[in-house]
């Protein structure tokens, strides 16, 4: 994850994005809150730090996945409409799996990080029969996973 200096550089990068720079400038100007409701890189990093501090018993595999996942979140911010980045919830379940999930108007999106083996992505649509369940290894395509997570 990025340190503070890297944050500043990163912020400048997304502010200068051709496609969404103006929208990011609007966000930075209007919303300086510390929560992920402000979908900016600082908030993504703060969520990462919050998870790491709250769940100190995460396995090395989970830490690696989390790191890779959140770095990917920071990367895709440059390329997607920031309005697509919505808040998500997280918890560690009784099976020691770390769940990141978004409950949206269209459905429930889960990213489930197992302690030692794999990451599962699931989407269950509301009001339709759409169900998606995919499994990713640590060397899987996390960029597509991140897009899936935020696209619903």
């Amino acid at each position, binding site marked *: 994850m990025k340190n503070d200096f890297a944050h500043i550089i990163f912020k400048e990068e997304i502010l200068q994005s051709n496609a969404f720079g103006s929208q990011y400038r609007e966000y930075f100007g209007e919303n300086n809150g510390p929560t992920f409701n402000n979908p900016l890189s600082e908030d993504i990093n703060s969520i990462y730090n919050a998870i790491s501090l709250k769940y100190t018993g995460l396995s090395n595999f989970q830490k690696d996945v989390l790191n890779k996942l959140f770095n990917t979140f920071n990367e895709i911010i440059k390329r997607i409409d920031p309005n697509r980045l919505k808040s998500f*919830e997280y*918890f560690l*379940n*009784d*099976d020691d*799996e770390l*769940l990141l*999930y978004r*409950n949206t108007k269209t459905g*429930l999106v*889960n990213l*489930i990080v*197992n302690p030692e*083996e*794999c990451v*599962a992505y*699931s989407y*269950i649509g509301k009001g339709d029969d759409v*169900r998606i*369940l995919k*499994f990713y290894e640590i060397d899987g395509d996390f960029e597509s996973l991140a897009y899936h997570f935020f696209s619903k």
Partner: protein
Amino acid sequence: MVACTLQYIPEILHTNDRQPIEVFTVGEFMYRRCKPEYLDNPFGNINLTELSHNRSGFGDQILSDENDVLYSIKIYEEIEIYNDQQISTLEIISLNQENKYCKIFEQMKDGNKIIARMDILHDPEPCMLPHCIFRIWVGDDKITSDNYKVTLKKFNEIRNKIREELTSMIIKERCQNNFPI
């Protein structure tokens, strides 16, 4: 069946001599209480050992109202109603030819195909006739809290598939606790 001794449980919910109804109906509801903070994702936070639900019954065989699942049926508990919990409702959307709920899940692990099965069993309690459980088998092992760690917990794909199946059955996200007090 032992008689229900909890005075606050309505007589209609007492099992007495009534037998389990082994068949289910598509469209029948299954009610489960859960903490409000988990209502968005009620099956994300629990292990999958014999999940208790109440069945609604169907047609002219209505067995319970959704709020009945908020009753405590444990004699040693001091509360009568879980007023701090809410209700997650599932709908049975498919059954086998015998009108029973039975789903198969598979996973390859170390070159072996692992097969699990999830059934819904009507399992009346003395004070709760509509009580049911989702029972899971991995191979010939019935999953219990005692063997969970050495059976189902080892098979991540199957667990995720089961959770996805359960979550896909949820029909009401926020059913308020409107129990008449």
